[in-house]
């Protein structure tokens, strides 16, 4: 092939991808950092206010509460989803119909829209008609009945079961396929050396799938920072910001309070925070794997 035509092909072929991706993913990220320097209601003139939005964020208790809630989500995902999924993957290792059925069932929420998942759990938690409170009544634990989503002290924790429920299947399948990729000879050799049961898991299986665990942790972190839909549907970030996440706070600041500049500044913080968290997790987990 001649060099000229292939150069044209390269430019022409990459152009649409670069254009769409650049315009709708990359430019907005840069722009939100820029809009963050303005006081703007979304209509009319923008007023340049320098770093005022960013310094306001630093002193904004709701922002810190959102970040704390996001971190609760990250921790619930990393220390809830990952171990549960890992345990399930180890237990559901075989391909009997029962194990296949359970794997498929646990994965099912992954193909459903978060809107429906959020609404179903809203019903489960409903103080009057919710089955959770009915269940507590039925087993004689009426005293434990709560306003699961409208009690500001517990609302954020009420969101954790639906979070785990909807994503654990993803990690289960990731870990299952990683475990299946371990060559059988390694297990045979380990068995000869007396490494069976939990010892085999700790010394053979887990180290061999450690890269996958690292990937799962990154997915957990970025996934938790992306959880907007579930919280928006179930609580709108309320009551009184008790379940506010960075994304819902950004949404509420922008589209409920009409503070576009402030919302943009929060958007920029979300990008920065997610890069920092992912970087830190990579550093921590790779240190751990080196020491093993």
């Amino acid at each position: 092939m001649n060099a000229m035509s292939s150069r044209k092909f390269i430019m022409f072929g990459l152009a649409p991808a670069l254009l769409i991706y650049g315009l709708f993913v990359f430019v907005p990220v840069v722009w939100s950092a820029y809009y963050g320097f303005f006081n703007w209601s979304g209509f009319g003139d923008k007023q340049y206010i320098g770093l005022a939005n960013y310094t306001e964020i630093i002193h904004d208790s709701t922002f810190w509460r959102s970040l704390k809630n996001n971190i609760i989500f990250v921790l619930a995902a990393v220390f809830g989803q990952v171990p549960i999924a890992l345990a399930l993957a180890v237990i559901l290792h075989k391909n009997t119909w029962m194990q296949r059925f359970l794997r498929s069932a646990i994965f099912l929420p992954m193909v459903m829209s978060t809107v429906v998942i959020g609404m179903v759990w809203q019903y489960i938690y409903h103080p009057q008609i919710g089955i959770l409170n009915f269940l507590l009544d039925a087993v004689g634990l009426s005293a434990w009945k709560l306003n699961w989503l409208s009690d500001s002290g517990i609302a954020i924790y009420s969101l954790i079961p639906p979070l785990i429920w909807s994503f654990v299947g993803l990690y289960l399948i990731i870990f299952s396929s990683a475990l299946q990729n371990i060559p059988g000879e390694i297990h045979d050799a380990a068995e000869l050396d007396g490494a069976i049961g939990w010892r085999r898991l700790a010394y053979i299986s887990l180290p061999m799938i450690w890269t996958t665990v690292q990937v799962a942790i990154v997915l957990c972190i970025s996934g938790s920072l992306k959880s907007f839909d579930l919280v928006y549907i179930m609580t709108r970030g309320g009551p009184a910001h008790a379940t506010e996440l960075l994304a819902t706070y950004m949404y509420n600041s922008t589209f409920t309070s009409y503070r576009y500049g402030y919302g943009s500044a929060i958007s920029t913080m979300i990008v920065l925070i997610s890069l920092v968290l992912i970087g830190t997790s990579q550093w921590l987990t790779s240190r751990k794997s080196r020491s093993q």
Partner: protein
Amino acid sequence: MSGLLGRSKPIIFWTILMVYGIFTLYPFFWLIVSAFKTNEDFYSHPFGLPAQWNMANFSRAWETAKLDTAFANSLIVSIGSLVLTLFIGALASFILSRFQFRLKAAVFAFFVVGMLIPIHSTLVPLFILMKQISLLNTYWALILPYTAFALPTAIFVLSAYLMSFPREIEEASFIDGTGLWGLFFRIILPMSLPALSTVTILSFLHAWNDFSFALVFISKTSLKTLPLSIANFSDGYQTDYGLTLAAMVLSVLPTIILYLVFQEQVMKGMTAGAVKG
């Protein structure tokens, strides 16, 4: 495996599993069964089966929630962004994996970074951009961002797959006199079918289930997608439980049926790229 579970404790394991299985499936069971109930039935027997299997909820929900429009809109934006993602993504991956040029590594890194950008951080600037170029309340307001956010994963998955093809493919096709486009359409695309189907599942489900972009970019009733319509509908018909639940069941039925048919493929496809051996 028998070593792992031990021979004495399988009952405990299976009990835990059954409890977990029930925990997983009960919300689905409850959703589907309750959708058949009347309001009184719903209040008085929250756990039980419906006193009467009330089919009318479904037809009423279909009409009241205008689900036909919502389905059509969801199909248009999902298939639109899917076609764009597959074509544009495959073309870019073909170039990134089979050609040598300056800045290649930089272009690849540029795309892959996109997988780490939280979607919602772009909502505000994208809303402003869409407003300025008058795309708010059009199908393009969803098709273009869905495509843009699907591209990083698509390029990641497809390039990895294309990388494994032997060099001789190009040589053989040039000797046969096929041009670059011919090579792409007649050889590369058909050979990448497994990777393309992974990308299809990922991008389709993402577009079909997305809520946040639709929430911000679409306010016109006639353009609302399924998740958005369902969310709005439940706000309006909060106390008609059977009706709302029936609308929810109808809206998730297509993806659940597709999942039951293509299970293995869906599960593998969704997790592609996460397992590195």
